[in-house]
């Protein structure tokens, strides 16, 4: 092996340690007792090995019902991803395939909002959500972000790249537009729809600032908002805090492993478009 080749593998190994190490440390700490977690010098293997860090998380009546937060997060992220994929695909179909007055205007308006920084919406959306009576409820996490333009923009590009022959044939067979959308376009665009679902789910699952401010009751939190409460409640009890972090990480890591190629490809392509 040449010197350059060795240097290359050393660099890859160092990066891998830097990226995987902290995650393993999180997992290892979550399986320790507190004295073990704060021991100097630190040890990577829990001794004794215990799941007691996870026990307080299952208490539904405490101020930190992590299991409840987990369910809330699942509900919010699933609801939000479903809403996005349904509304965005319908709208994208109209913009990609149908002719109507005002099409250019709508498309321009939708794309134009992609460039508005999200923090501008914080305060006014807080008021809008409050007027709708959704403060401290999961609706505040499910609906507002489904108004975002990304899904429509993304799916319109995908639909435009699909072959039209099947649609033309279906039209000649007397299918209406909704049947064409549902029976022809949706099956053809399935990978892109799956990508949008995964990206929306990940984004919603990890959203932090918004849930911290619009949710107040311990029973209503999602995981990220709750984790900062957990940190406050268990200040230096790191096994419990890291157990909470593991619980918040596992679903997204599993989802990422399952959909790795789709997620990575969609991120990769985002740079080539601009």
């Amino acid at each position, binding site marked *: 092996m040449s010197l350059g080749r060795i240097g290359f593998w050393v660099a890859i190994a160092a990066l891998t340690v830097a990226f995987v190490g902290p995650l393993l440390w999180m997992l290892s700490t979550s399986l320790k007792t507190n004295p073990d977690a704060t021991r100097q010098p*630190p040890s990577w293997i829990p001794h004794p090995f215990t799941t007691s860090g996870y026990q307080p998380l299952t208490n539904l009546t405490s101020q930190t019902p992590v299991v409840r937060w987990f369910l809330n997060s699942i509900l919010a992220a699933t609801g939000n991803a479903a809403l996005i994929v349904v509304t965005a695909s*319908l709208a994208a179909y109209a913009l990609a395939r149908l002719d109507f007055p005002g099409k250019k205007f709508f498309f321009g308006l939708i794309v134009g909002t992609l460039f508005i920084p999200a923090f*501008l919406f914080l305060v006014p959306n807080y008021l809008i959500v409050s007027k709708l009576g959704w403060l401290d409820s999961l609706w505040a996490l499910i609906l507002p972000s489904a108004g975002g333009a990304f899904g429509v923009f993304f799916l319109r590009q995908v639909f435009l*790249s699909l072959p039209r022959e099947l649609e033309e044939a279906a*039209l000649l067979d007397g299918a209406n537009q909704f049947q064409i959308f549902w029976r022809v376009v949706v099956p053809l665009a399935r990978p892109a729809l799956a990508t949008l679902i995964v990206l929306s789910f990940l984004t919603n699952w990890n959203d932090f600032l918004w849930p911290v*401010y619009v949710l107040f009751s311990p029973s209503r939190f999602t995981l990220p908002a709750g984790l900062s409460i957990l940190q406050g409640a268990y200040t230096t009890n790191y096994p419990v805090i890291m157990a909470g972090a593991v619980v*918040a990480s596992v679903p997204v*890591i599993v989802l990422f492993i399952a959909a790795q190629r789709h997620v990575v490809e969609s991120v*990769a392509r985002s740079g080539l478009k601009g």
Partner: protein
Amino acid sequence: MSVESSAERAAAAGETLQGFQPPEGQGRSGVHGRVARHGALTPYLFLAPFLVLFCVFIVAPAIYGIWISLHDYDFLLPHKPWVGLSNYTELFTPGGRDATDFWRAMKATGIFTVFSVPLLLVVPLLVALLLNRSFPGRTFFRAVFFTPYVLGVAVVGLLWRYLLDPNIGLVNSYLDQLGVHRNIPWTTDLPWAWISLVGMTVWWTLGFNAIIYLAGLQDISPELYEAAEVDGAGKWQQFLHVTLPGLRPVLLFVLTVTILASANMFGQAFLVTKGAPGNATRTAIMLIAETGMRSFRMGVAAAMSYVLAIFLLLISLLNFRFFRMRDTS
């Protein structure tokens, strides 16, 4: 070139990509000329569900925000008097009620951006160059370096607060073993707090930028490298004269996205330094969120967010100007 026009360009590119369009007249017209493909209302029915959400949560707040910023808008008080531009002018008046806090927070966001953006431009490029070579397990390592990004800031913040704990954290513990026998106050003192925030952000988002770079690298035609090699260019010269110019649009995209993300910094400081020491690391977004959604002084908070947005707009315009200058030279 404006930001908008680049998006339209992207959209137009998609338009030209669409293939398989039947020749004019075929398939859609018969004896009666052009057959109506759908009713006049159909497109609007397809658009309606999205448009409702879009109007309520994007269009309305974009306008409502301006209206709020022109009022002394306190969520908890019944009377919300019109004050014109005074929420804005107060921010620019030395000694104004929120001016000191606001500019300190803008400075914090600025410091964070100035130190994190160059690192997030250069380090991911180096990682992408490593990943651009062909070697066994490349897809695996690509995914490994991207993993922190899918975790979200709450997990990353909690994890790094623990790793950086001055007394029992892994970082100080290893530094001690390396002979640095002092407990570095990573989260409570300067400049350490900035190093922590920038460092953990690089760890968290490096993979995102690296993957965008990697796609850009793979888009550069191998023939360009072959031609450069025939001309006797070394590796470094190939990097300067083939790789960097080929990456220019991707660089602009990464720069724009990274500046925007840095200006949005919230979770890291909220969880790890909590603004310490003495609000030095309280970022603009932290201040806007606290002012608007904890103290409920929404008029001022909305005004702050528009001032921050205008700063970002100016920086984006400068970026585009700079890159276009390089284009024409």
